[in-house]
Structures are given as structure tokens and as C-alpha cells.
């Protein structure tokens, strides 16, 4: 993991003190809300339906045990004993008091964390593959580059007031687990003629205008990353629209300009900027890379692991679902599901956070990851330790073996918390998970993603089944999209037809799933493959069979 230097610590502490003074001036009336709002947002403090919300950055989803314990401490001392891990690999606390937020930021600074640039029209937290540095299919570890981008973009004077927020995702693996083509910039590390390079995508994004990112350059030498990103951002900063926030994202700029014209402008800016970097960025990258050396792997006897596989069905199912291959042959990566049937997707109690921190410290080289799918990952675990990890997780209610199944749902906070939402997401996710709990192994791999408004924080556009909650004449109403994909074949789902009211939604999903089970060629053909093979029409007919009968 990246270790903060004195410079980082001094910068974060200074921002906390600035913010503390801003809160003081707001409370004594020296600042109006209009003046204060952009200042609190710069520090991750939002106002939601019931209370303030603090969004804390977890850089590229990476946490140490100490940091996780501090999040648990914050949850207990200033919130309601839990935290919500988000689709951008961050954590949100839903109930802080404004007056306490400077103290919370101070507590975060104690463990080298902050909430800077988790809001506003800036470059947000860079997200990445939750298995970065561990994945078997990895070409190169994306974390040093993500950290380089974090350092470059934090408080970057030119990019603090972009036309709109800006999200970058990066993967170093063959399989895209970071949904890079649904980001303003998506970066894929590749190897070309023995050297590391980037494939760069631009103009992806979900929200009210969902677009899959287009390829901007197929082989950018890794050493050119920062000047090239700076070129893209500088073109967008000048050409992006500021007159209409719904037309202000880079995807609209690229669409209006055309990818070739946009590329030409970026290339022009790149030639100018490249010289200015002078190799200083590469020296910084070299220092950063020292922080991301592989852990000291330990060889252990596998006897207890194989015994448990043979003798414990629950353990075997959990290994099949929640354990991923590791680049080291006797290691694995464990995904801890935060999707217990009926639980709120992405939520963890303070006790669970502490227990997970203990596991990471004891078994996982002190590392934790947050996935964009709102689960927690132990990236480096000796296979021999899997039985002990499973037993501990089971004792704290976190051994649900459902990764990739129908109950492993991405859901935004929706109208239970979010001031922008038009309908609730969480109860829909809870209902689906409970309804299909006994059938999910039969149903197999299926990604359901739920958003409570058109802003699409729940990534519904790229779900195999997407559910979008809307307000239809004062009633919560849910639109279904099918055919979306978040992987290498990223695709925007197709809207199926009229939305369903709450009492219609579950029967509609029943019909959809029954249709899939009847239509699939064999048990191994997953839902997305059946939709791809047959198109959406048979499923549309299943969803709206009642309309046709009427």
C-alpha cells in the first residue's frame, strides 16, 4: 500500500483545519449556505433526506486493517454503528452532525485518509480492479498508476472547477472488473512488444445519457500517462459545456466533437504538455511502485484446506462462489459478501468492520479492498487459511456464498437516504435477495443492478437485469432493462417497456426468471448468454404477458 509522506500528512491536516474554520464561520453566521455548500462538498459533506452524509475516499478501494478499524470507530462515535460501501469503492456515513464533521476528518487524517474530492466537479477517486496486484489474469498492477493519478489530480489547480465531475477507472487485468468503459476515462494496462502500455477509452458514463466509452488510443506508452491525461482533461476543461449540467460530462463533449476531432485536439495538447513533465512524474512513479511490492508469500500445508473441502458442504460452496484464483499458486483472493439475504447491499456494522480488519491482519498481509460491487476483498490469502477465515466469517454473519449470483446486487442508497432519488432501491434489493435465496444456485450467474434515479449510481444500465426506480405520478415505479454488461463486452441494457409498480415488480421478475430457466440450453448457459443468443424479445414477452392477455 502507498504510505503517506510528511507532505501528504501536512496537506490533509491543513485541509481539515481550513474546513474546521469554514464550519465555525457557517455556524456563527459569517458564511451563508450558498457560500458554505461548495466548501463542505469539497470535503465530502452532503445533505441527504434525513441528515448530512460524509463520503470518504478509499483510494482505488484499498484499505489497511488500521484504517478499517478507524472507520469502525467513526461509525460508533459519530454515526449509527455502520457504514455504507459504495459503487465507487468509497464509504459513506449517513448520520453525522455538521458540527462533528471536522473531528471526523481529523480522525481520518490520523490514519492517512480524507474526504477530499469525493464531491464537486473534480477528478474523483480513481477506481480499479478489486483483485489488483493479486489477480491471476493480470498484465500489470494498476495500483501504482492509480496512486500516481491520485497524487497528480488531488488539488490540481487547473482541474478543481471542471465542467462536471470526472471519473477514471483503471484495470491491469485481461478481464475488466472495473467497468472501465463506463467511465469518463477508462485505462487498460496491456503489454506490447515487451513493454507496458495503456489502452485509453474516453467518454463512457451512465446517468441520464448512458454511453460506452470509445477507444481514444490503443497503445499509449505507460511513461506518457500523466501528460496524456492532462491533455485530455485540458481539452475537456475548455470544450466541455458549462451552460447545462446535463450536457456537461465529457461523453457529451466527445459525442458533439466526434472522436477523431477530439483525439486530434488531445494529441495537439499532448505534444505541448509532454515536454513540461520532464520525467519528474516517472521519478514519483518509481517511488510509488516501491510501496506496491508483492507480499511475502508463506508456504503452508494444504491438508486442512482439502479436508474442509471434502467434509464441509458450506465451505465448499463458499470457496466455489467467493474465492478467486491468485497469481501465486497456493494463494487465493476472498470476496466477503456484504449481500446477506435481506441485508442492505454494501453495509457493514462496526463490529463486522473490526472482525474483517482482524482477519486481514491475521491472514491477508494487512490488506483489504472494497469492490465496486460493494463487497470487501481479502486479496492475498494462503489457501491453507481459507477454512479458518470461513469459520470466522460465518460467526459474524458474513459467509454468504453468493458472489455473482442473483442476490449479489449492486444498489444505490435510493430514496431511503439520497436527496436526488426518485424511488427506493434498498428494499427492492432486499426483496429480490430473500425471494430467490433458495433458487439462486439453480439460476446461476446473474447481475442485477438497481438505481433509485436516472443518475444511475447503481449502474443499472450495465446490469444483466437493470432496475431503475422512478416517480410515476406520485407512485414508485420500476423500469427494467436487459442485455447490459459491465465486463469486456460492456453494453447498455435495453429498456423493456412500461415500468412496474412495487406490487407488480416481483411477479414480473418471477416470469423473467422462469422464462430464462425454460429457454437456456443447459445449466451452464448464464442469463446474459441466453439473452445474447435469443435477443430480448422472449424475455420482454414474459415480462408483459399480462399486458398482452388484456
Amino acid at each position: 500500500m502507498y504510505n503517506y509522506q510528511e507532505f501528504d500528512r501536512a496537506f490533509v491536516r491543513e485541509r481539515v483545519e481550513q474546513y474546521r474554520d469554514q464550519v465555525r464561520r457557517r455556524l456563527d453566521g459569517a458564511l451563508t449556505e450558498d457560500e458554505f455548500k461548495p466548501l463542505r462538498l469539497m470535503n465530502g459533506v452532503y445533505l441527504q433526506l434525513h441528515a448530512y452524509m460524509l463520503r470518504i475516499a478509499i483510494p482505488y478501494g484499498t484499505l489497511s486493517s488500521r484504517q478499517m478499524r478507524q472507520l469502525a470507530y467513526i461509525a460508533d462515535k459519530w454515526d449509527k454503528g455502520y457504514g455504507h460501501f459504495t459503487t465507487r469503492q468509497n464509504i459513506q456515513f449517513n448520520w453525522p452532525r455538521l458540527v462533528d464533521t471536522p473531528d471526523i476528518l481529523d480522525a481520518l487524517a490520523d490514519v492517512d485518509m480524507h474526504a477530499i474530492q469525493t464531491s464537486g466537479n473534480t477528478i474523483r477517486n480513481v477506481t480499479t480492479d478489486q483483485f489488483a496486484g493479486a489477480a491471476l489474469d493480470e498484465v500489470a498492477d494498476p495500483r501504482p498508476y492509480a496512486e500516481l493519478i491520485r497524487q497528480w489530480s488531488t488539488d490540481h489547480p487547473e482541474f478543481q472547477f471542471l465542467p462536471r465531475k470526472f471519473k477514471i477507472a483503471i484495470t491491469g487485468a485481461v478481464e475488466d472488473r472495473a467497468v472501465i468503459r463506463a467511465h469518463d476515462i477508462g485505462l487498460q494496462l496491456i503489454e506490447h512488444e515487451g513493454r507496458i502500455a495503456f489502452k485509453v477509452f474516453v467518454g463512457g458514463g451512465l446517468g441520464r445519457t448512458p454511453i460506452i466509452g470509445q477507444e481514444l488510443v490503443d497503445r499509449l506508452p505507460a511513461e506518457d500517462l500523466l501528460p496524456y491525461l492532462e491533455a485530455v482533461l485540458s481539452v475537456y476543461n475548455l470544450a466541455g459545456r458549462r451552460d447545462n449540467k446535463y450536457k456537461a460530462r465529457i461523453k457529451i463533449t466527445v459525442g458533439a466533437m466526434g472522436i477523431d476531432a477530439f483525439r486530434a485536439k488531445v494529441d495537439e495538447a499532448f505534444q505541448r504538455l509532454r515536454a513540461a513533465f520532464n520525467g519528474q512524474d516517472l521519478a514519483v512513479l518509481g517511488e510509488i511502485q516501491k510501496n506496491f511490492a508483492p507480499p511475502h508469500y508463506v508456504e503452508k500445508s494444504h491438508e486442512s484446506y482439502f479436508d474442509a473441502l471434502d467434509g464441509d458442504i458450506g465451505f465448499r460452496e463458499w470457496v466455489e462462489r467467493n474465492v478467486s484464483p491468485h497469481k501465486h499458486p497456493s494463494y487465493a483472493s476472498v470476496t466477503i459478501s456484504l449481500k446477506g439475504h435481506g441485508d442492505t447491499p454494501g453495509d457493514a456494522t462496526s463490529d463486522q468492520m473490526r472482525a474483517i480488519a482482524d482477519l486481514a491482519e491475521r491472514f491477508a498481509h494487512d490488506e483489504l479492498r472494497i469492490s465496486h460491487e460493494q463487497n470487501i476483498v481479502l486479496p492475498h490469502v494462503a489457501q491453507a487459511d481459507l477454512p479458518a477465515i470461513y469459520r470466522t466469517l460465518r460467526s459474524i454473519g458474513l459467509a454468504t456464498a453468493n458472489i455473482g449470483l442473483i442476490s449479489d446486487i449492486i444498489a444505490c442508497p435510493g430514496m431511503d437516504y439520497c436527496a436526488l432519488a426518485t424511488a427506493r432501491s434498498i428494499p427492492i434489493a432486499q426483496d429480490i435477495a430473500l425471494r430467490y435465496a433458495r433458487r439462486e444456485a439453480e439460476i446461476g450467474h446473474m447481475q442485477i443492478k438497481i438505481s433509485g434515479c436516472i443518475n444511475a449510481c447503481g449502474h443499472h444500465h450495465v446490469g444483466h437485469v437493470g432496475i431503475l426506480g422512478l416517480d410515476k405520478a406520485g407512485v414508485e415505479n420500476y423500469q427494467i432493462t436487459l442485455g447490459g454488461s459491465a465486463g469486456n463486452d460492456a453494453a447498455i441494457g435495453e429498456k423493456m417497456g412500461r415500468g412496474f409498480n412495487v406490487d407488480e415488480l416481483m411477479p414480473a421478475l418471477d416470469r423473467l426468471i422462469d422464462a430464462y430457466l425454460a429457454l437456456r440450453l443447459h445449466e451452464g448457459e448464464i442469463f446474459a448468454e441466453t439473452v445474447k443468443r435469443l435477443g430480448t424479445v422472449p424475455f420482454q414477452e414474459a415480462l408483459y404477458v399480462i399486458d398482452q392477455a388484456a
Partner: protein
Amino acid sequence: MARIKAPVVITANDLLTGEVVYLDLAHRWSPELSTAKVFNVIDEAEDELATVFSEAVVIGAYLAEVSTDSKVTPRHYRETFRHKGPSNYFHGKQAVQDAEVAA
């Protein structure tokens, strides 16, 4: 957007806590919807809203439609959730109301 219809109350969030509050008959901000001042004429509500909008103790004041059949209740589900709390945990106003009943 459809024009808001009376009866309405004035609601906002408390500056210190973010809690949902309502303007009451004594022109104080109260967490209780039951004591909120109900406006039956939109123009009067908008005039009062203009006077409280920039008050330092609350954020984002606006008009919310209510029903007044037997008691004051929100008309839109968004306001119902604001008045009650989230549906996934027993937090927010519902917990406070429950504690008061128990006491």
C-alpha cells in the same frame, strides 16, 4: 413541473444535524409535522417561504404538500420517508417517535 397544491407546510433541514424540520405556528422550526403551520393558500405559503428561506438555522426550505383529513400527513412518498426515516433500519424520526411513545 406541476404547480404545488395547497394545503402545504414549509419544511427544511436543520443546519446542525440535518434533521427534517417544519415551520410551526409560532414561527419556530420543529421536528414534528403534527405541529406544522398548514397553509391553505399557496401565495401565503410562498410569501412566508421567502422570509424564512435564508434563515441561518435551516437549509433548503421548501413547500411540501400535505393532507389534513384527520391529521397532517405528507402527500408524496418522498415526504413520507423524510417524515418517517429509512426503510432498511429503524433510524430517523421513526426511532425518536417510538422512543417517545415508550417513555
